[in-house]
């Protein structure tokens, strides 16, 4: 796909990024002047003005921190619980048979659907937010890591055994490193799910947060700051993904090339 152009010099990667960026900006501009869409897509100057306002009012920092606290604690709980459950499921057939159908079932329900239930059970405030993110990240990460443990090449375990490895060595020196790529993939998916779920989680009567603020701007028809927040959530998402991808490359560079 890269070489379709007939020109002799290749457009460098940053060049394409620039072209892509300018195209989007142009499209956005058209949307902002077209009478039918102008109200929902205010253009850059207005967005920048909104940025100034939310910074000076102090709400941006407050919202960002509040959301990050929920995302980070929910994700951390999800990770800490998903790892042992995933290994138990891979190890013990009864655990797998009992848990797996339910993990698959709940995983397919959009978090937004069960948020009200969590609020009724856990009250309003930060608690239900963390619980919802915990649940959503736990489900995706447990499934991914479990697949990883089950995918460990059996001949590697045999090879370790004939070289004198005991059960404990096999866990620490074979299964754990062999599963690392899946754990990192799980982290990447988990972070992405945590952000997606955040908006649902903050619809539970939060007092601050990126998702809650979008809702409140929407209620008062403040379109420019709302669009700004939407863009910021996108930036947070892509930044965290890039960080994790770098981490993946560093830690699992030994892998045969493969995209998950």
């Amino acid at each position, binding site marked *: 796909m890269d070489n379709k152009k007939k020109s002799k010099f290749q457009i460098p990667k940053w060049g394409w990024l620039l072209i892509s960026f300018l195209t989007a900006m142009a499209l956005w501009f058209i949307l902002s002047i077209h009478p039918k869409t102008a109200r929902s897509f205010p253009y850059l100057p207005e967005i920048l003005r909104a940025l100034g306002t939310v910074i000076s009012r102090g709400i941006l920092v407050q919202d960002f921190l509040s959301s990050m606290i929920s995302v980070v604690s929910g994700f951390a709980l999800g990770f800490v619980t998903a790892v042992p459950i995933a290994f138990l499921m891979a190890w013990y057939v009864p655990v797998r048979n009992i848990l797996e159908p339910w993990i698959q079932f709940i995983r397919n329900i959009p978090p937004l659907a069960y948020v009200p239930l969590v609020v009724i059970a856990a009250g309003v405030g930060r608690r239900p937010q963390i619980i919802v993110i915990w649940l959503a990240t736990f489900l995706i990460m447990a499934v991914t890591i479990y697949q990883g443990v089950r995918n460990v090449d059996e001949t590697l375990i045999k090879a370790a055994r004939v*070289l004198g490895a005991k059960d404990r060595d096999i866990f620490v020196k074979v299964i754990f490193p062999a599963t690392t790529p899946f754990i990192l993939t799980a982290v990447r998916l988990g972070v992405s799910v945590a952000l997606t779920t955040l908006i649902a989680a903050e619809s539970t009567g939060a007092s601050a947060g990126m998702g809650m603020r979008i809702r409140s701007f929407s209620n008062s028809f403040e379109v420019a700051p709302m669009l700004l927040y939407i863009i910021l959530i996108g930036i947070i998402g892509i930044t965290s993904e890039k960080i994790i991808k770098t981490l993946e490359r560093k830690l699992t560079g030994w892998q045969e090339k493969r995209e998950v």
Partner: protein
Amino acid sequence: MAGEERSVKVKIDHVEKIYDGRQGQMVALNGVDLDIYENEFICVVGPSGCGKSTLLNIIAGLLEPTSGAVYVDGKKVEGTGTERGVVFQQYALFPWLTVLKNVMFGLKLKGMRDEEAKEIAMKYIKMVELENFVDSYPKELSGGMKQRVAIARAYAVQPEVLLMDEPFGALDAQTRTQLQAELTKTWQEEKKTCFFITHDVEEAIILATKVIVMSARPGRIKKIIDVDLPFPRTQDLKMQKEFLDLKSQIWGEVYQEYLEVRK
């Protein structure tokens, strides 16, 4: 062979293996008896499904026989042990470890200190001529190089018996020939008892002191053929009458079994 009396290294005593499958029981091995003497190089040939891999896994201690037993130096095999090394067809290198760390793996498990383990590992890496690749990861190596690492890794823990399950099966003809020559050389230097599975009759004759032909369904030893050709066995040997006679004899035995299986 020569008159000297050698001690039995591995005794396979009426080993039977029955698998419970969906279509009822499947007899993989039906009373296999075999004495493997010290320093012998045994090659096992036979059609797929004759239980040769099952037999190797039982000797390795990775599978339990349904009845019968395997003894190494008179001691009954129960589970794996470092006196029995295994080289697998799929290399089975740890992809997250470098060549050096792969070869050191078994040594570290023995509780050896880093420097000591490294020294021994380097000796065997040099033996397989990969000293320029000590810090490479398996994904950077060709198939032949990977199998060399696996052989070095197996030798490093100083096993007395080396079990090899079609180790060169996935390699191209040239690499195969080269590794066969290297393996003969190491076998002569290191004096290990080798048990080598292959489906390639020529490979068996080039390597073995004794070729075992197995029959399928149920798997059992059909014929034991001594190969009294002098080492090192070069490629020219393949053109000579003795070699061709052996080849047609062994191939005849194996081919009958292929026909049996196809029925």
